[in-house]
C-alpha cells in the first residue's frame, strides 16, 4: 500500500461558491440535469438537442454576489466563469465561455448555451460522449497570501455533467454482422445479433469498447430511417438484448457476490447500472449512490434478481410502449 500523501488543494476555497455550483443545472432540451449527473440521449438528440447551463434566477445570482463579498475570502472582480466541453477519447476540449463572474451573475442572462452558435467538437463525439464542466476560477494572478489561491486560473468551485448516447453509456456501438463474423465466431447462419465480451463486465473498463454485431441488413435499415416507429422499437430491443448478454456474462463471474458499488462503478457493469437506474438526471448524488447499490445487490440475488434487473431495463427503455406502437396501438 502506498504511504505517499500529498496536499491536493493546498488553499482554502469558498463555501459560498461551492454551494452555488452544487445547485446549478444543465438544461438538455426539456430535461434538467443536476450537478454531477449524467444524461443519456438518442444518437439524433446527441447531435442536435440544445444544451445550456442554467445559472439560476436573477435573485439567486445577486444574492451570491452579496454573500461572496460578506465571506471576504476572494474578491468577485478577481474571479471568472469558465465553461468547457471535453471528450476524453479524442482529447477534445472546447472552451465555450470565459467571462468575468460579476458580469455573468449580474448582466449576462440566466443561461449559457453550450451548442449555439456552434456545436462544440466534444458534442459531436457521440460514440465517446462528453463532459460539460463549469468552473469559477481566478481570472488573473493575485497577491499571494497564506492559505489562499493566487495562481491565475486556479479554480475554486466546479460542477460537471456527463452527456452520452445510450450505446456510448455502455461502451459499444453496433457493427455489421457480416459473413466473416459468422465464420470467425462459428455463429449459425441467421444470427441477428452477437455480443463479444472477453471478460466479466465488472472487470471490463468503463472506457473499453466492446463488440456488438447486428445483422448487416438490419443495421442498414435502421440507419436509413432511424426515427421510424419500427426502427425505434428495434433499437430499444437491441439495447435490451445487449444488456441481457452482459448480465449473463456477469452471472458466471465467481467474484460477483463480493462486489460493492465502489468496486464496479468505473467498469462496464457500472455504466450499465447507471444507464438502467431509471433515475432522472436531476437526482442528487446521494440518491444516485443508493439506487446504484440496490441494483447491484439485485444482480447478486439468486435466480429472481437478474430477471427483476432485466424488467427494470425494459421499463427504463420503455420497450412496451414502443412495441405497442409497432403493432399499431398507442397511435
Amino acid at each position, binding site marked *: 500500500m502506498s504511504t505517499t500523501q500529498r496536499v*491536493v488543494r*493546498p488553499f482554502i476555497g469558498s463555501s459560498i461558491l461551492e454551494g452555488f455550483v452544487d445547485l446549478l443545472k444543465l438544461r438538455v432540451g426539456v430535461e434538467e440535469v443536476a450537478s454531477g449527473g449524467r444524461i443519456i440521449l438518442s444518437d439524433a438528440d446527441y447531435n442536435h438537442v440544445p444544451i445550456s447551463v442554467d445559472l439560476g434566477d436573477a435573485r439567486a445570482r445577486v444574492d451570491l454576489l452579496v454573500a461572496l463579498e460578506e465571506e471576504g475570502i476572494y474578491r468577485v472582480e478577481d474571479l471568472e466563469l469558465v465553461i468547457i466541453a471535453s471528450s476524453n477519447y*479524442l*482529447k477534445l476540449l472546447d472552451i465555450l465561455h470565459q467571462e468575468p463572474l460579476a458580469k455573468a451573475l449580474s448582466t449576462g442572462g440566466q443561461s449559457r448555451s453550450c451548442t449555439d452558435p456552434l456545436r462544440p467538437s466534444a458534442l459531436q463525439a457521440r460514440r465517446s460522449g462528453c463532459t460539460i464542466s463549469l468552473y469559477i*476560477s481566478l481570472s488573473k494572478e493575485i497577491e499571494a497570501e497564506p492559505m489562499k489561491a493566487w495562481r*491565475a*486560473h*486556479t479554480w475554486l468551485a466546479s460542477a460537471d455533467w456527463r452527456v452520452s448516447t445510450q450505446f456510448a453509456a455502455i461502451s459499444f456501438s453496433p*457493427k455489421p454482422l457480416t459473413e466473416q463474423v459468422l465464420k470467425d465466431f462459428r455463429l449459425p447462419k441467421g444470427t441477428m445479433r452477437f455480443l*463479444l465480451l472477453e471478460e466479466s463486465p465488472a472487470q471490463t473498463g468503463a472506457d473499453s469498447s466492446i463488440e456488438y454485431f447486428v445483422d448487416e441488413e438490419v443495421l442498414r435499415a435502421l440507419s436509413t430511417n432511424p426515427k421510424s416507429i419500427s426502427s425505434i422499437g428495434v433499437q430499444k430491443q437491441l439495447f435490451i438484448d445487449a444488456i441481457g448478454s452482459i448480465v449473463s456474462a456477469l452471472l458466471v463471474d465467481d467474484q460477483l457476490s463480493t462486489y460493492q458499488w465502489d468496486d464496479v462503478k468505473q467498469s462496464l457493469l457500472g455504466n450499465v447500472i447507471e444507464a438502467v437506474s431509471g433515475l432522472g438526471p436531476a437526482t442528487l448524488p446521494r440518491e444516485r449512490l443508493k439506487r446504484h447499490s440496490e441494483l447491484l445487490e439485485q444482480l447478486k440475488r439468486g435466480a429472481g434478481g437478474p430477471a427483476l434487473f432485466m424488467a427494470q431495463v425494459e421499463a427504463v427503455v420503455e420497450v412496451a410502449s414502443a412495441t405497442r406502437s409497432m403493432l399499431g396501438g398507442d397511435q
Partner: protein
Amino acid sequence: MKYPTFPESVASDLIARLLGGEQIEDSALDGASVWMETPSLEQAIDIGALRDAVSRIRALVEAPVSEPIWRDHDRVEGRLAEETMPILATLPIEVLDDRGFWRFLSIAIFWWFVAWREEAAIVRGNISTYTDARKSTEQIPLRLFLRARSVAGGDSNDLASVLPRAADFWRSHVLRTQTCSAPSIARSLVQMQEMHGLSTTEIRPLARRLNRVWTNTLLFLYSEDEAAILVEQLRVQGMSDVSAAESDSDE
C-alpha cells in the same frame, strides 16, 4: 459520404495474414472494409494522400544513406504524425470518433509503420494494443494524430518530431495527461525539453509538479507566455528536487 472501417474481427484476420507474411494489395484491404455512411462527411477521404505520406517516410527510413533523424524511431513517428495529422484533422469528429476507422487506418494505410515501430510487440504477440483503437493513446495512427495536434498552432511546425529518442516523453508527459488537451502547455514543454534535454530522472520531478498544478488550475486557458513561464518555473523547482534528493542520498 461513406468512410471505411474495419470491425475488430476483420482487423484480427487481416493482421494474422499480414504477420504470416502475406502481401495484401491495397485494393483487397479497401475491399475488406465496411463502409459507414454519414452526412457530416461532405468530401471523400483522401486515402491516397495518407498512403503517399507513409510511402515518403518509408523511403527516407529505408534509404541506404540517411540522416540521423531517420534512424530514431520516435522522431520518425513524430515526422509521420506531422505529415498525416493535417489530412485527418479535416475529417468530421463523427469519423474520428469511430474506432473502426482507426483500425482501418492502422492496417490499410499505416501497416508498414506499425510493424516497423512495434516490432518488439509483434514478437511478444501484443500487436492489437497498437491497432484495435481501444486505447487512443496507444493505437498507432490515433496516437500520431493526437501527438501532432497537441502541439499544433504555434510558430514551429516540427515540434512533434524535434526531440530525439522521446517516446517516454510523449507517452508519459503529453499523451496520457491533460497536457494533450492544452496546446500552449504542450508546446512549452517540448520547447523546454528541446532547449535543456532533461534526462528521465530530471524530468520526472517537473512532471509531478505539473500534474499537481493541473489538479487545481485550468491550464488550458494559459497563453503561450504564461505557459512558458510556468514550465520554466517548474523546471527550476524540479531541478532543486533532484539536487535535494541527491544530497539526501549522499548523506
